[in-house]
């Protein structure tokens, strides 16, 4: 158990002030937007829950929500195992470790609008490497024409862009395991799988939780990359929640409904993250208790 010490609040206070300054007032403002019809700051009408009702009954939104959930789950299902595998296969020390680390991190550093633009060319069969390679292999592929292709391309782009985040976190976590643990495992004659399951995975729990939640939140709010790449099409295939929201907020300039939409959006992410957070914590605790009984 951690000792109780209320003075620890003084250490946390700067963070709370920093974040509250830019987070609380905008949130309150958005709640205000969501219950009014705002024509101008002086001319506004209180409309109660009307916008919420409109958003909740919007069929298109339900479709976008399901698309979004599927996409985010696919992102997690691909990126988390791939990131762990990548972290395990990266060299531990020497110049090779440095080189691989930098190369792996590169894709994270490209601004999101550029990511979309690059893939736009990269995926084209006539002038892009990926598209041309697929055409050469005889695959009929077009991210602008075919809904499945577009969806897979957005997923591939996200995997390309964000797997390094999972890998870097796991890599740093792996490096923090003392050598003594591995030595003990070697003396016990533990298999590779056992080392992973009982030494590496429990130590990675903390960073994995960060990775899973970060990737979940960020993929749930993905906007710039698919917007630039496919513009949400073909049809609605890659119109995710955030894109739909922006169409409302900017396209039609309906501040009230868009604000209500944002709050519902926020509540959905909040609930899912809360469940995920508690579930991962429980799995971790059960794990440790299990280890204690052995």
């Amino acid at each position: 158990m951690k000792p109780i010490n209320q003075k620890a609040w003084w250490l946390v206070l700067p963070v709370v002030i920093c974040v509250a300054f830019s987070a609380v007032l905008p949130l309150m403002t958005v709640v205000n937007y969501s219950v009014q019809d705002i024509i101008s700051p002086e001319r506004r009408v209180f409309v109660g829950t009307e916008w919420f009702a409109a958003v909740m009954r919007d069929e298109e939104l339900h479709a976008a929500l399901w698309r979004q959930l599927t996409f985010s789950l696919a992102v997690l299902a691909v990126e988390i195992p791939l990131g762990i595998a990548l972290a395990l296969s990266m060299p531990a020390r020497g110049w090779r470790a440095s080189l691989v680390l930098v190369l792996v991190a590169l894709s994270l550093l490209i601004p999101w609008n550029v990511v979309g633009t690059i893939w736009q060319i990269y995926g084209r069969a006539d002038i892009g490497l990926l598209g041309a390679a697929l055409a050469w292999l005889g695959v009929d592929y077009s991210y602008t024409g075919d809904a499945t292709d577009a969806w897979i391309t957005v997923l591939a782009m996200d995997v390309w862009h964000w797997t390094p985040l999972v890998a870097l976190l796991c890599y740093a976590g792996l490096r923090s395991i003392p050598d003594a643990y591995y030595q003990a495992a070697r003396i016990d004659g533990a298999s590779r799988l056992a080392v992973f399951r009982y030494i590496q995975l429990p130590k990675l729990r903390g960073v994995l939780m960060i990775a899973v939640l970060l990737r979940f939140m960020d993929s749930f709010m993905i906007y710039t990359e698919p917007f630039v790449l496919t513009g949400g099409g073909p049809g609605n295939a890659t119109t995710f929640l955030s894109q739909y929201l922006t169409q409302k907020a900017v396209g039609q300039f309906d501040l009230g409904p868009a604000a209500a939409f944002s709050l519902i959006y926020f509540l959905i992410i909040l609930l899912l993250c809360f469940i995920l957070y508690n579930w991962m914590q429980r799995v971790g605790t059960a794990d440790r208790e299990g280890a204690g009984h052995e």
Partner: protein
Amino acid sequence: MNEARFRWRTLFLLAYLLFALLPIYWMVNMSFKTNQEILASFTLLPQQFTWANYATIFTDASWYSGYINSLIYVAINMVISIAVALPAAYAFSRYSFLGDKHVFFWLLTNRMTPPAVFLLPFFQLYTTLGLMDTHIAVALAHLVFNVPLAVWILEGFMSGVPREIDETAYIDGYSFPRFFLTLFLPLIKSGVGVAAFFCFMFSWVELLLARTLTSVDAKPIVSVMTRTVSASGMDWAVLAAAGTLTILPGAVVIWFVRHYIAKGFAMGRV
């Protein structure tokens, strides 16, 4: 180490690197081509090799000042984020106090707000404070998502350090600041490295807030780039060159923190 396993690992790593680097190669490739060549033909290497796109960026003040502006606010943001996150993460990892878990979770919720609508109140808040179009405004706005992340990452690494170390140090007569700076900080170097890199990265690539809060004096590179879309079509080549240049500062940052990430936990050999 098992020879066959080693080979599989290397093969997997090389395959991933190929997947990771090909789009980047394509971007660099595009940056040395002319727009005409990009759109007209498929060429693995530039046929008419040109530096013109880079020349455009380095000679046009609005382009290169974009890089400088971005670097300034990212640096401010990184320093503030790490400076406030370190003590907080220590408090979360070492003590329990009133509402600790709730504050921790509340911090995380600040990453969960979809930006589209929140941009307007941000704009108005900073206008009211007279901070519009300053570097500090963007740096402060980016704290909302970077500070929680930094606290979270650092807390994870600090929890990995046994508490006996703190207790021994206090018994040995270390004051808190001295213990923290000379003993504790070196132990969580890898955490600081990772947190600093992530703060840099998220602030560097963020587009919507940075674009909303700036107009001229603090205009960041990500927003200058959107200029390449014009009525006459896209200026693909210059955009690719600008994209290539945006990778470089980050690559330098990760090069500097790589030792912290790779070296990990110094306690391992005690």
